């Protein structure tokens, strides 16, 4: 591995982990996410998701008031009251996530105890779990890591041999990947998170885990603690990454390599064809990725190796070297990988290097566009079906689209 690993600290422009609620509430529609925090937390989630109109909200905030802070009200009793009120209004909820925030963590409100107590009181009708989505502890997609890690202790135990796909996948992608694994002879394939919060997959000695997402450090650790084996592989982004990822499972199941080739070669051929028009647009273009989701390193690997892009800088909010090793090995020599952020200095570097495309958050995208720098806003990558060999074309398109748009709207510009 010879990427150039750097670190930087200073002002950061990232989401907190609460944002993960925006996609998790759709993956598990029978769950409710109750943030315990301030009006800021409530405002964050509704600013992100409130453009959709909900007949039945799937998330809410228990807003701390001065009485709670002054200790005039017993915070634990208050929380029980709010949870009861909520469950009365929404009797169909099966799993209630109590989500910690910066305020609840700074005042050290014990949500784990609250979850335990509510579980007792509700007697199995609703399962209550807790995790932290606070900005002081989690960045963006780490919220999903927290939510899934919180589910791990609830998983039933079974030593049955199974492949467990961990990390949120789009439904169609999930179905497709399962079909492919079954073609290889891997009969039992399950997912975490499931589509219904009550249909939790079992875990145990026979479980082999493929991480679908790179930001699941805590979840992986807890699964390992319950006997599962985490298969080392790059992440299933792009044709190459997806193939290596699937091969890791095939190897663990002892699938004959020619069988694997018979199944995957035609897919690879098709992916190459699908990638071609995007590759033509992207090859030789210089890309700068700002830290946001921890997807940056796998994306950079895909964009470089399969689309021919040049990597100016690859930012990541957090670098778990163990989980990222297979990815780092595939990056070209000397790639500038920056963990952490000083957003002002990083923007200076963006401006100085004049990249052709910048992957960044929405707080920076329009301002950079106004400076004449093409951007791809990064949050879309967690809302799009990008995993698997068949999706390589779609993934590349997410990056070629802004460039194509620039060309369409400004045909004379270089």
């Amino acid at each position, binding site marked *: 591995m010879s990427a150039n690993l750097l670190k930087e600290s200073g*002002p*950061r*422009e*990232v*989401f*907190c*982990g*609460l*944002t993960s609620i925006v996609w998790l509430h759709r993956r598990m529609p029978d769950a409710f996410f109750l943030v*315990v925090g*301030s*009006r*800021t937390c*409530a*405002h*964050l989630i*509704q*600013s*992100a998701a*409130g*453009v959709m*109109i909900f*007949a*039945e*909200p799937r*998330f*809410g*905030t*228990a*807003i*701390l*008031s*001065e009485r709670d*802070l002054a200790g005039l*009200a017993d*915070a634990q009793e*208050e*929380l029980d*009251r*709010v949870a009861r009120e*909520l469950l009365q*209004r929404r009797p169909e909820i099966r799993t209630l996530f109590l989500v910690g925030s*910066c*305020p609840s*963590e*700074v*005042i050290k409100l014990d949500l784990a105890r609250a979850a335990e107590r509510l579980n007792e009181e509700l007697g199995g009708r609703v399962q209550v779990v807790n995790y932290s989505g*606070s*900005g*002081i*502890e989690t*960045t963006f997609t780490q919220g999903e890591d927290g939510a899934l890690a919180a589910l791990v202790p609830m998983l039933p135990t079974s030593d049955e041999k199974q492949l467990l796909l961990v990390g949120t996948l789009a439904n169609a992608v999930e179905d497709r990947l399962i079909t492919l694994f079954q073609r290889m002879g891997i009969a039992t394939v399950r997912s975490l998170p499931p589509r219904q919060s009550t249909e939790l997959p079992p875990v145990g000695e026979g479980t082999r885990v493929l991480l679908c997402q790179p930001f699941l450090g805590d979840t992986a650790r807890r699964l390992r603690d319950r006997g599962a084996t985490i298969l080392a592989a790059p992440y299933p982004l792009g044709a190459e990454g997806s193939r290596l990822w699937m091969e890791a499972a095939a190897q663990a199941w002892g699938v004959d390599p020619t069988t694997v080739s018979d199944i995957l070669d035609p897919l690879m051929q098709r992916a190459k064809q699908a990638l071609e028009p995007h590759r033509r647009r992207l090859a030789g273009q210089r890309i700068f990725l700002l830290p946001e989701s921890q997807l940056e390193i796998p994306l950079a690997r895909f964009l470089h190796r399969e689309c021919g892009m040049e990597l100016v800088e690859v930012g990541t909010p957090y670098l778990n070297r163990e989980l990222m090793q297979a990815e780092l090995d595939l990056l070209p020599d000397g790639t500038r990988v920056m963990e952490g952020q000083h957003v*002002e200095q990083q923007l200076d570097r963006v401006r100085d290097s004049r990249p052709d495309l910048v992957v960044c958050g*929405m*707080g*920076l*995208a*329009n*301002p950079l566009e*106004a400076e004449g720098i093409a951007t791809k806003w990064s949050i879309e990558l967690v809302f799009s079906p990008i995993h698997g060999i068949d999706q390589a074309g779609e993934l590349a398109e997410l990056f070629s689209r802004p460039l194509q748009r620039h060309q369409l709207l400004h045909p004379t510009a270089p």
Partner: protein
Amino acid sequence: MDLTLWTYEGPPHVGAMRIAASMEGVHYVLHAPQGDTYADLLFTMIERRGRRPPVTYTTFQARDLGGDTAELVKRHVREAVERFRPDALLVGESCTAELIQDQPGALAAGMGLDLPIVSLELPAYSKKENWGAAETLYQLVRGLLLHNAAAQSPGAANPGPQAWKEQQRRPRVNLMGPSLLGFRCRDDVHEIRGLLEDHGIDVQVVLPMGASVADVMRLPDADANICLYPEIAEPCCSWLERNYGIPFTRTVPIGIGATTQFLQELHALLGMEPPDPEEGRQRSRLPWYSDSVDSTYLTGKRVFIFGDGSHVLAAARIARQELGFQVVGLGTYSREMARPVRTLAKELGLEALISDDYLAVEAAMAEAAPELVLGTQMERHSAKRLGIPCAVISTPMHVQDVPARYSPQMGWEGANVIFDTWVHPLMMGLEEHLIGMFRHDFEFVDGHQSHLGHLGGLQAGQMTAEISADSEEQSTAAHSLTLQWTADGEAELKKIPFFVRGKVRRNTEAYARESGRKEINSETLYDAKAHFSA
């Protein structure tokens, strides 16, 4: 602890950001945890701005809490001043920083920086966004003008609102309150500026939208202040009145009547000849559109109104006096505006709903069973649940309410926009008649609105019908023991046009209870109808 599914306002520091981002040359250092930068999106995505808000966040993380967070604040203040070279600096905290109590304002003031620094005290656990914006604007104006007070002696030299006559110039006013993330402020300013121009009145400073620190210094040179958005600008206008003797207008010019009254008020303040009371009729299309026979079916449409104080007061007046609706529910989340909203509600024979509890608003809406909801982005959720047409009249809003096209709410053109926007969600007249006549169509089914262009057909109609039936069941569950609808009663009820059915059901049940009946059949329904129309 309050269960909040949707919040009508953000925290107060978002209000402060709105002031800083609306102005030029004002920078805001905000002590806040990593992640609170989400608020940048409000400006870059919802307001679609092409530059970053002038805010430096300290973005502390858990590991910083063990260290010196005060030093962190000072470092960010220093970097922000060096990098952005602002003319004035706001320093404040977000809700989490308020718990750590680093006193960032005092820290910044003690750093020996050579620029005006305004320290913001915004209690995040008791106050909200609009309060934060109003307080920030007030503190900023006060701070800057006092900073400059040595050069001028405030108040003493002010010649009064009619000095323009002696000085032989046109009268000039400040437009106070328009800000980013306000409701249609961009176009309201344009509309009011044009309106004043037509009356020979100059606009001196627009604050905070587009104003610089130098502009703030010129505020006292105006003959009067126009308080366009009292939620944001009233404390500031009051202070300027007390300290510089500058009077300000109280009427918010939304609607034909209010705009006319606003012009009269301003002309009187400035000692000008009163304006032509017929101007609105000549300059806006709303009066004629509303008079024209196509609008007759709007008469008595039951409307529920909720939003911030100013927009709600304005909407109620337009609904009653300019569109001929019947206001069946009125409320606001602006506690500062509770009194005028209560007074108006009383006039209408209603109990005002003063609440920031989304569930309470939804319950009141269900109870009033209106045919149209005029509310905020939040009311669109409840209206969807209850299957009621809805138009947005106030913040909170989302990206679709910062449109590219010219769309003021104020002045004559604002009234045109309002007419179109409010009438659009209602079922068009002909369709309403035909659905009342023939119930067995395969395409134009109950609750269907073909002009809104959705698929229609059975599914759309049934879904909304079921949702509202469900919520009805819940709300009447308490009485279900004593009241029984017969099959023939239910069938008769189904014949009532979709949007008034909720109200008819309620009325009939109330009538049945009053008259001691246990069973409701078709005759009871007709009895109730006669009873309530009598």
